[in-house]
């Protein structure tokens, strides 16, 4: 119980730091703390594999991607105008929509059946130390068995989704492929990563 509250406070604090930081780099740091705390919370919920995935994919891949883009875009300049404060303009619609969402959540919470385990004990008999046994809830073997038998189709759709994402990114952000003729004219000269005409360093 105490551990939960400590983790919850750390999670909320890092989230607040993420959205209030003055620079994107500070936001990345806050988000990193958020992800690590969330991985620990996943461990208390017996989701070992997802805790590891949270660290590897989110902290290892996505945050590093953010850092690359920050380093690429804002080398000492402020790339995007801050403009006027949007809070007063959006406050009333946000409150209305939030109220609707809250009513919906409370309504569905009242209507829903009570779960098998209405409370969560961190030290309950579970997957820790039994990661290889497929029958144990939360073990890696159980996760893999479910993923590759019952939910095989969503898993394959995931592969397709990532493929589409890769193609989309290359189409969006990739340089135009120089034709063979231009390459031959240019000889063995290498193409600079940042072309001089582009406003990257402005």
């Amino acid at each position, binding site marked *: 119980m105490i551990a939960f509250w400590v983790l919850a406070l750390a999670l909320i604090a890092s989230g607040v730091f993420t959205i209030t930081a003055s620079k994107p780099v500070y*936001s990345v740091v806050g988000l990193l703390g958020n992800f690590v705390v969330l991985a620990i919370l996943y461990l208390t919920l017996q989701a070992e594999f997802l805790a590891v995935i949270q660290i590897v*994919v989110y902290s290892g891949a996505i945050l590093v991607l953010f850092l690359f*883009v920050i380093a690429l*875009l804002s080398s000492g300049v402020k*790339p995007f*105008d801050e403009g006027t404060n949007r809070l007063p303009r959006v406050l009333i619609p946000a409150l209305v929509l*939030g109220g609707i969402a809250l009513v919906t959540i409370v309504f569905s919470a009242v209507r829903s059946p009570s779960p098998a385990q209405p409370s969560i004990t961190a030290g309950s008999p579970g997957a820790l130390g039994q990661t290889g046994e497929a029958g144990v809830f939360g073990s890696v073997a159980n996760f893999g068995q479910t993923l590759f038998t019952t939910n095989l189709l969503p898993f394959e759709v995931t592969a397709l989704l990532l493929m589409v994402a890769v193609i989309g*990114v290359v189409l969006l952000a990739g340089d135009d492929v120089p034709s063979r003729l231009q390459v031959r004219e240019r000889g063995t000269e290498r193409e600079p990563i940042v072309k001089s005409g582009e406003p990257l360093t402005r």
Partner: protein
Amino acid sequence: MTPSAFAVPIENYIGLSAVIFFLGVTGVIVRRNPLIMLMSIELMFNAANLALITFAKAWVNAAGHIFAFLVITVAAAEAAIGLAIVVVVFRRAAHVDVDEIATLHG
């Protein structure tokens, strides 16, 4: 399972998830920097994941874990595409107001 002093009700986890989701929504609405807006979207993804994993634990059903895994994949794809769009927009014009990017309005 008998409730003990160490037991945490799942309402706490769901409430925590709601708070994190609220933080993400606030970040998207209030902040102007598109990178921080994307990071707020990541916060919302994580809030949804926390809720899914909590429910998976509460119902002792691994389907929630599978769905959280799919959400992580979608988040990775979304981050890649979103950052690519940010890079393209910044290449086209050095100083942009996020509210005035209306090229895709049609």
